[in-house]
């Protein structure tokens, strides 16, 4: 179910209305049911993957703490995904579940159970690390298979054919489950936190299942930390009208960003980044700019709706964006863009690799690995790897190269700030051009188009106005939010002005683009 589908407001209203009238235990059941319903709208089958991740990480985290469940409960958790698939296979005629899937699910459950029981026989000193490894291996295997299997297979095939070999591998038709990267990383983060004693272990399976599948942030984040979300799920939250107000405003703003800004900017970006497009420098720049606003409106709009929906339930989700296009340097950009992912990579990849504690060479290596993985996280394509490498390169230049001059503390004059901002914005735009290009050759085409300046065409001018028309309200909104506390809030404005803005936003949302585009980050 998408946030922009007609079903979502009904689901959310239903959950919110009932939620506040229930005792704590039943609230969790309601959230779990709503979350699985929300996900099942895409594909019933892939709920089994969420069940697997939840079960594996729940048991492994307990194992790390040396806590063992009785065999009956363990078996129930381990065979839950298989049971789900089997139930759907029997009860739902068009569930598209076949014998192979059942066999794979059963085998995976048995393999996990085998490892799990074996680890309990190991010495206590190595048991914790073994459970951590089991969790990481299991989760990354699922993620790797569903997201990267064909990519690695194709890439290996290309390498072999370069050496004159012609591998005849079968290509599998694998559907990418929505949100798999998000909930896998969230769940993995929990297990690592428990292992590092940076987070409490969750002993209640129901609470952990809600943590793993909480519907507002299930499919596109923010990637929550266990120490941020679990305590909120564990306590009986009191109703607050303030939360309700903030939640509604966040949802409205998020819809506005997605439907009015992102979907309309997408028309220009889709044209420019179409392989058949004839580009010159004007069009290339316009396309990159349009995509910059599209992806920001799309993703931060999604985050706002997610945060607003959670706020209606009294739960605060992490802030994922902090005016990213005001960044003055590469490091600043990653402190503002997709914060939950960048901090995840920082805490679980970059720092464990050594961070910036070693020699410059080691720091460069750590940065490179982290950013390449961050790029690959976005999608199984070399274009995303290039995007990650590009940002890694920028960070290296910022740390050790000529871009150190962009360090904000060095500026004493206003024009220096402007210059730094302009330079960083140009780098960001170039990055988005890589990210949006359908292939490396198309990116090269986009890049060469920047060298072709000619007369300004009327269609370009009218497209430019189209962009301004849809971006200017967002910039105004951001300017107001900036004056507030960094969130998407309009509170500093007088209530009369806010009332007018709310009404205008509602009308603009209703009157915006027809083709309902899916959120970009759903594919990641």
């Amino acid at each position, binding site marked *: 179910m998408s946030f922009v589908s007609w079903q979502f407001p009904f689901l959310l209203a239903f959950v919110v209305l009932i939620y506040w009238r229930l005792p704590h235990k039943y609230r969790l059941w309601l959230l779990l049911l709503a979350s699985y319903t929300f996900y099942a709208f895409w594909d019933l089958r892939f709920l089994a993957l969420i069940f697997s991740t939840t079960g594996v990480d729940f048991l492994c985290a307990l194992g790390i703490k040396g806590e063992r469940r009785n065999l009956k409960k363990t078996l129930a958790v381990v065979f839950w995904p298989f049971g789900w698939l089997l139930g759907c296979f029997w009860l739902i005629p068009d569930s598209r579940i076949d014998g192979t899937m059942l066999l794979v699910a059963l085998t995976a459950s048995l393999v996990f159970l085998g490892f799990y029981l074996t680890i309990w026989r190991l010495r206590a000193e190595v048991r914790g690390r073994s459970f951590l490894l089991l969790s990481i291996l299991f989760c990354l295997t699922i993620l790797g298979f569903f997201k990267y299997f064909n990519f690695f297979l194709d890439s290996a095939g290309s390498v072999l054919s370069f050496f004159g070999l012609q591998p005849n591998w079968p290509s599998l038709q694998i559907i990418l489950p929505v949100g798999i990267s998000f909930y896998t990383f969230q769940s993995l983060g929990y297990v690592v936190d428990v292992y590092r004693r940076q987070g409490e272990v969750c002993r209640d399976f129901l609470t952990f299942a809600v943590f793993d599948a909480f519907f507002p942030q299930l499919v596109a984040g923010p990637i929550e930390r266990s120490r941020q979300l679990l305590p909120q799920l564990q306590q009986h939250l009191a109703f607050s009208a303030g939360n309700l107000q903030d939640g509604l405003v966040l949802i409205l703003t998020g819809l506005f960003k997605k439907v009015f800004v992102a979907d309309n900017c997408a028309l220009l970006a889709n044209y420019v980044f179409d392989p058949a497009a004839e580009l010159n420098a004007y069009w290339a720049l316009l396309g990159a700019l349009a995509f910059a606003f599209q992806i920001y409106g799309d993703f931060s709009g999604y985050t706002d709706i997610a945060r607003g929906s959670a706020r209606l339930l009294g739960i605060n989700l992490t802030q994922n964006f902090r005016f990213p296009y005001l960044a003055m340097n590469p490091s600043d950009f990653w402190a503002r863009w997709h914060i939950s992912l960048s901090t995840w990579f920082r805490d679980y990849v970059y720092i464990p690799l050594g961070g910036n504690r070693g020699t410059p060479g080691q720091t460069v290596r750590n940065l490179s690995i982290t950013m390449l993985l961050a790029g690959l996280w976005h999608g199984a394509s070399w274009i995303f790897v290039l995007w990650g490498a590009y940002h890694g390169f920028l960070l290296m230049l910022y740390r050790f190269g000529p871009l150190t001059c962009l360090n904000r503390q060095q500026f004493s004059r206003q024009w220096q700030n402007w210059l730094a901002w302009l330079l960083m914005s140009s780098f960001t735009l170039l990055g988005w051009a890589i990210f949006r290009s359908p292939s490396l050759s198309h990116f090269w085409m986009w890049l060469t188009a920047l060298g072709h300046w000619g007369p300004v065409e009327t*269609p370009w001018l009218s497209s430019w106005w189209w962009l301004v*028309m849809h971006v200017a309200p967002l910039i105004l909104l951001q300017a107001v939010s900036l004056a507030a506390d960094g969130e998407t809030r309009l509170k500093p404005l007088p209530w009369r002005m806010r*009332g007018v803005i709310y009404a205008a936003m*509602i009308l603009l949302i209703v009157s915006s683009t027809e083709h309902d585009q899916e959120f970009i980050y759903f594919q990641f």
Partner: protein
Amino acid sequence: MKKLLTPAFLLALGLLLAAEAGVRLLLPDDVSGRFSYGYHPDAGFVESKDGTVRLVRAGGRRFLPQTFSRQPETATWRILVLGDSVPRGPFFQAAYPWRLQETLQQKGTKTEVLNLAVAGYGARRNQLVLRKALEYNPHLVILHLNDSNEYEDEREYRRRQDFHSWHPRHWPMKSYIFARAYEIKTEKIFWKLLPDKIRRQSAVNDAEAELRASLNEAQVQLWREQFWQTTRESAALVRQQGLPLVLVIQGVLQCQESGGPSISDQELAVMAHSLQGPGVYLLSMKQVFSPLAAITQCYADSAHLTPYGHLVLAQALAELVDKHLVQKLVMPQKAAMK
């Protein structure tokens, strides 16, 4: 709950409600039938208290502006012309209904021809217009046959459902201002700012969707059957009222393999003959235009007529009406019968 109703929220709600109430009170004509796309039961006929009838919108499209009295004047032939953009013509005086009225009047027959044709109307929407128009005491109905508008009839029906169905996804459309805003979206009004190449790429425009649908043989066959079924019903409606009916079989201009132009009626004529009976007359555009030396001067494009084409068609119809109908029927009796 009181805390939820902040002044800003109340103001936003108040503004939206005020806009809604304002539009409904001040522009009732604009609201009525605005989102029916030709499927409103009144079909775009607005009756005034003084006994006149005004033709307004017919959904997204409009009738040619006309006003007439409920009852035709004494001894005046009231002829209705129903169809699509072909009889509607480029403008009122250039369309053949106007020419027909002039021609008949020159022949001494007092006539009032109402052009009720609307561009893109297929059999279903024309039948709605016909049902309403029959309330205004016509003496003759001229109905154009063209089975290529069924796609648009269906599309507009679905569009109408966006505004009139009780599916939860359409609940906001019960508000006029929301519906109007939504129509801006569905009609892609602001897309005019975008260059053609972007619009073409980003939207499956109506023409493309229609083209795609027309390539689906099974769908086309279904529409064709629906067209003939609805046309049969329309003919029966007219005949039940004891009125004569002229069916005009439309023809399209095409190039023959030899290179010369010809007119095709795409098998409409074959089917149209099955509708022929007492009081039902056929006029084929193919038969009217084919004998002419300058066929191409009659057509503005492959389907639409030039003012000259309209004139030729008006003359042919005037001859048919004069020969078969006017000379056989006596107006006062007809009026009394009704």
